[in-house]
C-alpha cells in the first residue's frame, strides 16, 4: 500500500539524520489527513496551511521529541493542533469555527449513522454547536482548558461552564 516500506518511526530516525526525503515521505503520508482535520477546526485556509507548515518544520527540528510510544500520527496531531492555536493567537481573527454548522444530514444518513454509532452519536449531535465545539476541543482533541479557549476564541471560564453544561446534557440523555 505504501510506496515506502519504512515505518513512521523509521522515517523519524532518518529525519533525525537530516534526510529531507524521509520528511517528504512522512509529509505525503500524514499531511492530507492533518490538513482535512485542521480544516474542520478552523475555516481559515491560510491559518491551516501555516499550521501544517509549522508542524513539519517542528518535526524536522526535533524528531527526537517522539518518544517511541503510541502512534506517530497521534503525536503529529498533537503538534498540529497546537501549531494551529499558535497561528491563531498571532493573527487577529475573523474566525468562523466549524464552518458548516447549518448542515443537516439526510434522514437516510441519520439512520445509517445511528446504526453505526448508537445513541451516543445522536446525543453528541444534539448538543448545540457551542457546546459541541468545546467537547471536541477538550475531550476528542485532548486540549487543555486554556488551549481550547485560544482555539475557540473564548475565555477559559466559558470553556469550563460550556463543558459542564455539555456533560449535564449528555448525562440527562443517557439517564
Amino acid at each position, binding site marked *: *500500500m505504501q510506496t515506502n516500506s519504512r515505518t513512521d518511526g523509521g522515517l523519524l530516525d532518518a529525519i533525525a539524520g537530516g534526510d*529531507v526525503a524521509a520528511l517528504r515521505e512522512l509529509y505525503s503520508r500524514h*499531511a492530507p*489527513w492533518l490538513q*482535512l482535520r485542521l480544516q474542520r477546526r478552523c475555516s481559515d485556509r491560510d491559518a491551516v496551511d501555516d499550521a501544517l507548515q509549522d508542524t513539519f*518544520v517542528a518535526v524536522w527540528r526535533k524528531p527526537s521529541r517522539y518518544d517511541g510510544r503510541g502512534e506517530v*500520527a497521534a503525536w503529529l496531531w498533537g503538534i498540529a493542533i497546537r501549531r494551529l492555536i499558535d497561528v491563531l493567537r498571532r493573527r487577529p481573527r475573523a474566525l468562523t469555527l466549524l*464552518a458548516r454548522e447549518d*448542515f443537516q444530514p439526510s434522514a437516510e444518513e441519520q439512520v445509517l449513522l445511528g446504526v453505526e454509532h448508537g445513541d451516543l*452519536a445522536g446525543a453528541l449531535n444534539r448538543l448545540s454547536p457551542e457546546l459541541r465545539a468545546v467537547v471536541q476541543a477538550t475531550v476528542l482533541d485532548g486540549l487543555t482548558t486554556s488551549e481550547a479557549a485560544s482555539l475557540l476564541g473564548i475565555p477559559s471560564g466559558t470553556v469550563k461552564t460550556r463543558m459542564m453544561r455539555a456533560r449535564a446534557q449528555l448525562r440527562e440523555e443517557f439517564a
Partner: protein
Amino acid sequence: MSWHVAPDLLRAYARGEADHAAASSLEAHVIHCPGCRQEVAAHCDRQGLERVWGEIRNAVEAPPSGPIETLLVRLGLADHRARLLAATPSLGASWLVSVALSLGFAAFAAQQEERGLMAFLVLAALLPLAGVAAAYGPGIDPSYEIGVAAPMSSFRLILVRASTVLASTAALAALAALTLPRVGWMAAAWIVPSLALTVLSLALATFMPPILASGFVALIWGSIVIVTTRVTDNGLVAFGPGAQIGLLGLAAASVLVLAFRRDSFDLGSHV
C-alpha cells in the same frame, strides 16, 4: 481492523459536511489506520499541500544559523536582522579570537612597563575602529550586494553593525583592562578614544570609501600619539584629560556630520 471509513462518509467529511459524531469516529480511526489515511489523501487539496511542502523545504534547507545568529535571536532580534548582523565579517569567530589574543598580549606587556601600557591603550582604541571598518562595504562584506538591494536603509544597517562590533570589541578590551589593577583608571583611558575614532571614521566614510576613512583616522591619530610622546616624553599624554575632552568634542561633531550626511550611504556613489 474490521471497521473502515466508508467512501460516502469520507467524501462528506472532506467537504466539511459530516456530522459531529461521525467525523469524530472517523478522526479517531484514521489515527490508527494507514489504509484509511491513504483514502483520505484522495480528498485533500493537493495543490495547497504542494505549496506548503515548498515552504517546508525552503525552511529545512536554509543554512543552519550559527552561534552568533542564534544568540541574537535569543536576545529578541528578528530573524532577518540577526542574519544580517551575523554576516558581519568582524563578528566572526576568527576576528573575535584574534582581537582577544592581541589584547591579551598587550595587557601582559602593560603589566611589565610603562610603554607596554601605552601599547595596550593604543591597541584597545584602534581595534574597535578596525572592527567597524571590516563590518561593511564592498569587497569586505559578503552580504554587501544584498544589503544595498535590501529594503532597509544602508545607514541603519551600518549603525546596527558598527555598534554591535564596537560593543563586542570593547567588551573584550574591558575584560583585558580588568587584568591591570595596578594602573587604576588609566586602564580605561582607551574608551573615549575608541568611541571617538570610530564615529569619526563613520563620518568620514560619507565622503570616501569606508576602508580609506578608517585607515586615514588610524594613521592621523597614531601619528598624534607618537609625536606627543616624543615631544613631552610622556607616553600617556594622548590619553590625558585634555585629550579625552578634545576627542569627546570630535565625537560630537562627527555625530552631527553623520546625521546630516547619512543618505550618502544609500547612494553608494562614493564606493
